């Protein structure tokens, strides 16, 4: 929409971050080349500019990293919890100090708006380390029996949508409980994990306690399969999660999986429309919809559907899509060409199956990977776009008449990660929340996260919880 209120560009300075032309793997406290010398390029999704060239881990590197982690485990697990706590507090503080740098870095490598990395990702990353730091010397009191023991070496594989935050969710509880880790960041977003390696160095973390292996799916698979890994933690697609569950069958490896979702955001007729609209926008367009707990299915009560959709479209027309480093930007770039192709294909399937497409009128930059905020109406439960996780800024709108119908439709999914409820009636919130088969329910809000609050799915959204006291269990030898 050509607006009377044009915004002057307000770009965050790139100069706060110094990206080296190349990076190695971080094994046993040292940056090192891959055994086979392979490298890959990481690009900025908003410009397609090559940011750096990164060593690509293979099976031999995985083995080296696991050995380093195993060696470090003995001393690290024997440290008094209070000492481990202090390392983690150091890390939390250094992240706070370097948060502007890391926010810019993350925005460059991932494509998400600086407003989000600055106001959501980085504060949550620091908070997560600060929170689990405090647990390290209190494990006796966590409800898992006296002196609960760590598992050993944790192999962790994380996605590209919240690179540093997912790292924090994995590494902080693992270290607090006395495990050592080998972490593989996603191939499209390796940089913040490598900067984190430098933070470990600054914090004086003992060598081998944290090992970072940038690489592709083959490195992740080798890590999961490595026989000296005691614990596998994975965040990513349900298909890969199932493959991991098969891979570890018959072993002693513990597993936690945080997988896909198709969250229902339910709006009742008494909901305050403007607030619900903001919640719907946050639910599906935060991080370009590349969020496993996104509210990607809007379930709106029939009597307010037209009014709500009018407001929603008006609001979406004001979203600013463009340079992720611009502080005014609401919608950044899609993380990769591959992901853009997937979103595009699913949206086309939506049209082909008869749903009605509406996209916010906005100009897409000529380079980089972009997708305009889009919603589909006339969607039925049988439509692919109502069932499959799109992982992009695409909202499927369905309607309902009664609360029972809303619950039935919300639960009609292989997934069970998140859901939203918008209504002024307290008892209805509680009744509906009670019936939803989802691990996180946001009532009159959406996409809120906190290190003290357990997060994780029902059904095929995975198992295990991250965050809070519950998050400790995944890294302790309790059963």
């Amino acid at each position, binding site marked *: 929409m050509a607006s009377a209120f044009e915004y002057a560009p307000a770009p965050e300075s790139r100069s706060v971050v110094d990206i080296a032309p190349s990076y190695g793997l971080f094994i046993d406290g040292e940056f090192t080349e891959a055994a086979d010398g392979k490298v890959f390029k990481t690009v900025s999704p908003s410009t397609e500019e090559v940011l750096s060239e990164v060593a690509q881990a293979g099976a031999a590197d995985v083995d080296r990293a696991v050995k380093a982690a195993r060696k470090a485990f003995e001393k690290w697990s024997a440290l008094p919890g209070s000492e481990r706590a202090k390392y983690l507090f150091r890390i939390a503080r250094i992240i706070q100090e370097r948060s502007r740098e890391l926010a810019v870095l993350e925005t460059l490598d991932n494509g998400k708006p600086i407003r989000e990395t600055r106001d959501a990702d980085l504060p949550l990353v620091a*908070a997560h380390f600060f929170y689990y730091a405090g647990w390290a010397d209190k494990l006796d009191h966590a*409800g898992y*029996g006296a002196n609960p023991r760590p598992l050993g070496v944790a192999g962790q594989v994380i996605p590209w949508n919240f690179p540093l935050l997912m790292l924090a969710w994995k590494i902080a509880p693992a270290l607090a409980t006395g495990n050592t880790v080998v972490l593989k960041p996603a191939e499209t977003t390796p940089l913040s994990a490598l900067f984190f390696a430098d933070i470990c160095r600054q914090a004086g973390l003992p060598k081998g306690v944290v090992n970072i292996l940038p690489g592709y799916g083959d490195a992740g698979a080798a890590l999961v399969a490595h026989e000296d890994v005691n614990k596998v933690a994975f965040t990513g697609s*349900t298909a890969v*999660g*199932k*493959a991991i*569950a*098969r891979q570890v*069958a*018959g072993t*002693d490896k513990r597993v936690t*999986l945080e*997988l896909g979702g198709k969250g229902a955001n339910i709006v009742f007729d008494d909901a*305050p429309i403007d*607030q619900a609209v903001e919640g719907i926008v946050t639910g599906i367009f935060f991080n370009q919809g590349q969020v496993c707990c996104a509210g990607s299915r809007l379930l709106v009560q029939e009597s307010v559907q037209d009014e709500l959709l009018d407001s929603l479209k008006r609001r979406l027309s004001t979203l600013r899509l463009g340079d992720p480093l611009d502080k005014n930007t609401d919608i950044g770039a899609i993380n990769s060409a591959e992901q853009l192709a997937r979103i595009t294909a699913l949206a086309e399937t939506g049209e082909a199956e008869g749903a009605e497409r509406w996209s916010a009128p906005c100009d897409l930059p000529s380079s980089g990977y972009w997708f305009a905020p889009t919603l589909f109406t006339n969607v039925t439960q049988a439509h692919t776009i109502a069932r499959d996780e799109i992982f992009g800024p695409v909202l499927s709108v369905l309607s309902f008449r009664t609360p029972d119908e809303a619950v039935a439709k919300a639960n009609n999914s*292989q997934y069970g990660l998140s859901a939203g409820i918008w209504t002024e009636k307290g008892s209805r*919130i509680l009744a509906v*929340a009670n019936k*939803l088969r*989802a*691990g*996180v*329910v*946001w*009532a*009159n*809000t959406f996409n*809120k996260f*906190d290190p*003290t*609050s*357990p*997060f*994780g799915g*029902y*059904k*095929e959204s*995975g*198992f295990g*919880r991250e965050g*809070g006291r*519950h998050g400790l269990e995944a890294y302790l030898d*309790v*059963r």
Partner: protein
Amino acid sequence: MSDNRLSVFKTYKLYVGGKFPRSESGRVYEVTAKKSATGEAGTGKWLANAPQSSRKDARDAVVAARKAFGGWSGATAYNRGQVLYRVAEMLEGRKEQFVREVADAEGLSKSKAAAVVDAAIDRWVWYAGWTDKIGQVVGGANPVAGPFFNLSTPEPTGVVTVLAPQESSFLGLVSVIAPVIATGNTAVVVASADSPLPALSLGEVLATSDLPGGVVNILSGNTAEIAAPLASHQDVNAIDLTGADAALAKELEIAAADNLKRVVRPQPVDGGSVDWTADPGTHRLTAFLETKTVWHPTGALGASGSSY
């Protein structure tokens, strides 16, 4: 009573959906007493013909368990506690029968079998008390850094397949069923293959303990044959592999990955067998619970009243 009175045999049947069907396959298999001296199963006297369940029986049991899930998981924890306690009461009255069956099933002396049955009854009492306490122990308010009410609550996972231990035909059986249903799950139980009679008789106790039909379903037969369709069943949410050997457990865990069932692997034991008399702890309760976290803004008390 005359010594040569001909006794009345019992026809052992499955327990599915609150009813006592035979296997739809019409098959039975011989169950024999375990001899105390050699300890080898199948060498003792004939006890009964037990139903040999088919995959269709297994699927029927899942349907019954799913149907019962809404009511049972929606019942108050207090109510579930009373039902579990009622099971203990019913067992207490039928102790003699179970002592006889356990003695035959496990090759135990009468006094040892009595101790096993006592422990099993006490286990029902232990779990009866847990139903309305586990929520507070593993759930609670989360002190988030923002104006939000944030509460985590455990909820039952759903329909759970339970492969009961092969050796401990009654105490082990009770120890794996009670925690599953205490938290509101419903169960499809595969009894010990060689010693299914105490399990099948337990069905008769459950049927008279106010336990709604379908909450516990008990199948006897070949463990691998019944477990395979249950491990791959898309409407089963979790599987306890206690009664599977290592090779079968691996096979079933792979099948269970298809819909990401929660899996409890067989307990690792350093030689010998699992000690079912040990303190059960809470891990079998928490293994089949999901944590749901609900957020709501707390707002502020301004002149305009509450706000988001």
